[in-house]
């Protein structure tokens, strides 16, 4: 059996998990996948976060992707970072750069097992700030300058691909080269506030082809979080696992300790449990009914008869779910156009699910109180944040 086939049945521990430390954010990006803005009063305390790290160490989760919100606005962020790396849990954290002044940059440069990922969604201030807000381009560039000056080795620049920035791919690469950084590009998903702007921002069919061609030409040195495998149906498979890792090798711990199948699926249908419950994260990972279902082989549904199913695997569960498409049908951005047809076929009766978790500063407070966990529609599969993003994986084959 190929390794990927083993992965679909799940692992004892995640290979890599995303942990969002806070819903608080100084920005209000229009496409924020976690609808962040305000801190949630129920967020894990420092002690609780440390006990999660202890548990990750016991479970041999060797690194986590930390995000938010803006994780660095937590006053205990640096303490937790140190705690993680001294407990054999390496950290890659995503930030808009707001706290990365010269002092912090120097501190990071002196710390092992830390990767920094700066978000930038336009190669120019005009394009970036349109999505991420005024001043955010300058903040990101300043952080990159500080890291470079401090001698921090190869930060990542993380770009969500939109209709407005696909044409800037070469410019993004040039920015990365200028700062000794590595470029990472990922797919825009209709998750969180992204649902409100997806129609306007997601790349056109022509741009998808352009993106694919660019990746085939330049992909060797560019990380993608494995998020474009729906484009593999154009022909050549893109580098990556080509496996939906949700609940299998990947999951999300949100700021209040809720565990979801994937970072793009903050919705009660994909909620597996909470790290505060008896047995903690390990019990959720190993015992959750939802995850057990996600670890079944997927069926393919309406896509099964398509000759390209093996390469695209039906695309992204979250993209389908949050556009109101059936989970066992085509991805909304199916390169053969079936997704567009499915979107066009939606009618007044189509229910487009909305997350009930919203910490946008414009939203009412306490969008979700204590809610009984009910699992309704089950996903056929869920996708992304590749477990292996950015890693070269030598496999000792037999």
């Amino acid at each position, binding site marked *: *059996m190929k390794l990927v086939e083993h992965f679909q049945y799940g692992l*004892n521990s995640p290979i890599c998990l995303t942990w969002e430390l806070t819903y608080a954010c100084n920005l209000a990006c229009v496409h924020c996948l976690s609808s962040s803005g305000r801190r949630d009063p129920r967020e894990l305390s420092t002690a609780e976060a440390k006990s999660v790290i202890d548990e990750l160490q016991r479970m041999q989760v*060797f690194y986590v992707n930390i995000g938010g919100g803006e994780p660095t606005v937590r006053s205990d962020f640096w303490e937790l970072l140190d705690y993680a790396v001294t407990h054999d849990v390496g950290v890659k954290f995503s930030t808009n750069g707001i706290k990365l002044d010269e002092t912090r940059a120097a501190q990071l440069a002196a710390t092992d097992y830390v990767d920094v990922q700066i978000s930038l969604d336009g190669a120019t201030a005009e394009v970036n700030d349109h999505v991420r807000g005024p001043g955010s381009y300058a903040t990101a560039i300043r952080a990159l300058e500080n890291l470079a000056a401090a001698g921090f080795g190869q930060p990542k620049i993380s770009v969500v691909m939109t209709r407005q920035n696909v044409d800037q791919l070469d410019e993004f690469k040039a920015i990365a080269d200028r700062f000794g950084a590595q470029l990472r590009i990922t797919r825009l998903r209709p998750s969180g506030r992204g649902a409100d702007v997806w129609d306007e921002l997601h790349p056109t069919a022509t741009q998808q082809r352009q993106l694919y061609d660019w990746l085939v030409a330049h992909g060797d040195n560019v990380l993608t979080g494995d998020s474009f495998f729906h484009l593999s149906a154009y022909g050549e498979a893109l580098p990556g696992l080509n496996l939906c890792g949700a609940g299998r090798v990947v999951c999300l711990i949100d700021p209040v300790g809720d565990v979801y199948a994937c970072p793009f699926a903050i919705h009660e249908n994909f909620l597996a449990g909470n790290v505060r419950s008896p047995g903690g994260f390990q019990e959720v990972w190993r015992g959750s009914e939802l995850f057990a279902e996600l670890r079944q082989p997927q069926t393919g549904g309406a896509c099964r008869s398509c000759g390209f199913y093996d390469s695209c695997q039906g695309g992204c569960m979250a993209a389908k779910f949050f556009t109101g498409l059936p989970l066992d049908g085509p991805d909304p951005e199916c390169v053969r156009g079936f997704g567009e047809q499915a979107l066009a076929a939606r009618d007044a009766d189509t229910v487009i699910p909305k997350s009930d978790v919203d910490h946008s500063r414009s939203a009412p407070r306490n969008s979700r109180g204590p809610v009984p966990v009910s699992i309704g529609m089950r996903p056929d599969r869920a996708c992304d944040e590749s477990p*292996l993003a950015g890693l070269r*994986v030598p*496999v*000792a*084959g*037999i």
Partner: protein
Amino acid sequence: MSTDAPVFDPAVPHRCSPRVALRPEPFGALVYHFGTRRLSFLKTPQLVEVVSGLERHPDVHSALDAAGVEETQRPAYLRALAGLAANGTIEERL
């Protein structure tokens, strides 16, 4: 794990690198190297047994014997172990 790594010689004693952690998984084990921060995988439980048993044997061949690796599988296992030596998962034991 660079170009100056010695050629893999199964006749000499080896061990799993002390900078490596093996995490048991249904297919075998996940390997994490704290030095290179690379993940890799041991694709069979038997290979896990060989790798973790290396330090108890005078050479690689006897570790393969002890794990019960069949003769027909030897070349494949030796190739896999050579790969593991090249990426620093296993190393010569002095």
